[in-house]
């Protein structure tokens, strides 16, 4: 079968692509080819260079060296416009849709159906979009605003956008990151149908089981180089993981035994609304004991962000209570919670956890700058801050030229280590970890996981929230599944089985009946 496919000449060939950024070789002579009707997975860790390669293909970045051939002919792709002209379309990880415009306006944008040289023919456009949707099996309302659609439907709009441009080559960048397992299956079905009709698809992912399921062929990239090519039927997860990371990886860390003691955090009937006033946390009850890790699994967007914000004082609950070590702390400010022994590693480091333009040392005292020994009254004690920063840099192995460099000069892994250093060193009784390793390299992930287990063994209660099911399974002593603002089940961390948790995440139920509602 493999031989049969190689007979066909590729629709796309990328040869010897080199892209340098200051201090980084993002793509180091990458070769890639794509055959007609093929789903070709590009597998690699965060930062391996997958996105850079695809940005080059799509004209969002210009390669320093190398060539791109389409149907065997060399082409220059200097802008997305060039890429679209050559039948290449891209579905970005963060959707490229304008929220306040309608479905039709988003699809038309850049490829408008004109009634005359100035004005758009909106009726004709609507008709064509509806027809195109039906062709691929979904009814779409062309006048719906993007912001009113669910993530799954927004992704369909992205795919329609590509098809409207008569794309032959479709690039999907981490398309399943924001979807439920069930939505993922639906999108996979659409992709298979597209491939069967002759479209060629590049599927970017770092999830092993996904590429094994959907791809016809897998190319693995590490540190900007192609390190291997595999056929799904002739490989397995362990083999791919080793290729991707470059060494034998333990897919699980040793979390040891937990020794739960008294309840540190107790939540009863908690409700909260999101920024648009929709109730997204809908009656949460949970307990975290000292010396145990409670993991909250769930597809992103099921109210986890708001739950964490309420627990850490960043959002006011609309109902319910939060008790920490016997004290009612409902509605307390972040400062009061911190004073009472809560530490928080936020999910979005750039938004919440660091001030990137400030020196590293200021970031290391960001939550404790106001109290001795870092301040006396209103007066900052620069000497004490400097000494403490140096100690943390040492203890947490933060790679930095000095304590005074701006935080944004550090790598993502070292920035996160700094956040972890600050929060773990405040001797918390309760620790909230929100996506603590998102977007990091394997080394930093291991480091942070091990530190989290140390904190647990030292007697802290830990609440871990993560959209990475694997992370929750690895670290948690107990697992709660969050679905549409509720905890639908609590399972033992060691006995939990991935399929069961996955099904709970997707449907909120253990049974098999499908979930129909979409938006």
């Amino acid at each position, binding site marked *: 079968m493999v031989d049969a496919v190689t007979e066909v000449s590729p629709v796309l060939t990328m040869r010897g692509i080199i892209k340098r950024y200051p*201090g*980084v070789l993002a793509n180091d002579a990458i070769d890639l080819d794509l055959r007609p009707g093929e789903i070709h997975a590009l597998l690699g860790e965060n*930062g391996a260079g997958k996105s850079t390669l695809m940005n080059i293909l799509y004209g969002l970045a210009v390669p320093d060296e190398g060539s791109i051939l389409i149907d065997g002919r060399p082409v220059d792709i200097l802008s997305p416009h060039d890429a679209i002209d050559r039948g290449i379309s891209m579905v970005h990880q963060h959707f490229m849709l304008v929220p306040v415009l309608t479905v039709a306006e988003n699809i038309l944008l850049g490829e408008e159906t004109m009634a005359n040289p100035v004005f758009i023919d909106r009726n004709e456009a609507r008709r064509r979009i509806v027809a195109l949707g039906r062709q691929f099996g979904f009814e779409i309302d062309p006048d719906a605003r993007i912001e009113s659609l669910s993530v799954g439907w927004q992704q369909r709009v992205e795919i329609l956008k590509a098809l409207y441009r008569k794309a032959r080559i479709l690039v999907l960048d981490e398309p399943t990151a924001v979807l439920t397992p069930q939505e993922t299956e639906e999108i996979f079905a659409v992709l298979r149908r597209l491939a069967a009709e002759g479209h060629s698809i590049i599927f970017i992912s770092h999830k092993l089981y996904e590429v094994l399921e959907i791809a016809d062929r897998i190319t693995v990239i590490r540190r900007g180089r192609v390190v291997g090519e595999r056929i799904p039927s002739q490989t397995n997860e362990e083999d791919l993981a080793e290729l991707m990371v470059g060494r034998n990886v333990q897919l699980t860390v040793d979390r040891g035994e937990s020794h739960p003691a008294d309840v540190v955090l107790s939540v009863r009937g908690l409700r909260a609304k999101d920024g648009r006033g929709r109730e997204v946390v809908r009656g949460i009850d949970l307990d975290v004991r000292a010396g145990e890790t409670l993991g909250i699994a769930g597809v992103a967007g099921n109210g986890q962000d708001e739950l964490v914000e309420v627990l850490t004082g960043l959002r006011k609950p609309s109902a319910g209570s939060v008790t920490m070590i016997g004290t009612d702390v409902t509605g307390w400010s972040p400062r009061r919670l911190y004073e009472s022994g809560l530490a928080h590693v936020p999910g979005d480091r750039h*938004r919440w956890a660091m*001030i990137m*333009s*400030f020196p590293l040392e200021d970031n290391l005292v960001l939550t404790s700058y106001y109290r001795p020994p870092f301040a006396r009254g209103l007066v900052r004690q620069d000497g004490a801050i400097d000494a403490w920063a140096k100690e943390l840099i040492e203890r947490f192995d933060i790679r930095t030229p000095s304590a005074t460099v701006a935080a944004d000069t*550090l790598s993502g892994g070292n920035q996160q280590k700094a956040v972890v250093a600050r929060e773990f060193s405040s001797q918390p009784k309760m620790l909230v970890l929100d996506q603590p390793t998102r977007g990091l390299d394997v080394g930093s992930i291991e480091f942070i996981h091990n530190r989290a287990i140390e904190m647990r063994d030292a007697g802290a209660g830990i609440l871990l929230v993560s959209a990475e099911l694997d992370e929750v399974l690895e670290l948690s002593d107990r697992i709660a599944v969050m679905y549409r603002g509720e905890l639908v089940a609590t399972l033992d961390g060691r006995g939990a089985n991935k399929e069961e948790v996955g099904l709970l995440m997707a449907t909120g139920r253990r049974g098999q009946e499908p979930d129909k509602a979409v938006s």
Partner: protein
Amino acid sequence: MTVVDDRPAERFWRRGRLGQLFAIGAVPVASVFLALVVAALIILASSVVTTGSIDLALPFVAYGALLQGSIGSVSAILNTILQATPLVLGGLAVGIGFKAGLFNIGGLGQFLLAATAAAGVGAALATAPAPIAIVAALLAGMAAGAAWGWIPGALKAWSGAHEVVTTIMLNSIAAALIGFIILGPLLAPGYSFGRTADLGNSVLPIVLGTNVHLGVILAVIAVPVVWWLLYKSTLGFEIRSVGANPSAARYAGMRPRFLIMLTMTLSGLLFGIAGAIEILGVSHFMTPSYGTAIGFDAIAVALLGRSHPFGIAAAALLFGALRAGAGLMQVVAGIPVEIIDVIQAIILLFLAADIVVRHLFRIRAAGGIADLKTVTSSYGGRAS
């Protein structure tokens, strides 16, 4: 993707104290130089109008007179100091706002209201003992400026209305308001035009020469005080944190809304001191049509001084010198004093286009007005 290690900021920190000073000061100094060159070309072109032919000597004559009028004699230097005084205070006011991510374009309104309040209270206490009258009039000005600064702060904190738009609107409202007050309750009888009454004992004493008043001392004190507040106090750390990343500030237990209001109030207060001392020390009464460009001048000073109190002091002295010397330049070289506004704008132009300046002078230094990146966020009524 791993993040780069050799960014300019990195090199900048490695260079030591002197290197840092160079990195911060190079672009402003180069901008001033370039602006003077461009202005010289404008003066050269103007000579066609004033003398009928291109007069190559005119720029030198003009700049000579400018120097003479600003530092050429003791009284010229005193005049420079006098001119720089409100600019120092206004520059600090705008600069402290920049540090908190706030753009206070409302200096004009805060200044005018403070001037009116100081003139009113000063006139009312014209016969009281001087220390009481002066302190009361100054406090009235400070309170009025602070209050007019608090309003946009509160509006931003509670409704997200962007301070650039609200302060622009408040400037015009203030102009109408002082007209109402000065032509109403504060109107002094017996004059052919609308003005407030004589200040009597409320006039600030002269401390230097014949015209440099006590307000200069206030401006000189304000510089280290603001510096200490911003860089050595926890409150300053909070203000700078809110400016750099309001979400992170909230996460860290700071209170962004309170800090926004506080910073705008402080900014208004500094403009208020400027307004009060200009009335109590220089003009001695207030009119509805009091003309000042302090709002925009202060922005220029803060930008040129890179929002740093000591830089602001230096920039204010430079602009003060230009204003002090402009009169003599007009007399000697026939160049209208408005050239100073042109020079000021061109300096800002080069500062904003610092990429161009750095290219011209091969300066490899830390970013220009990059710490203002937050200013335009939340523009148009978006909560921060």
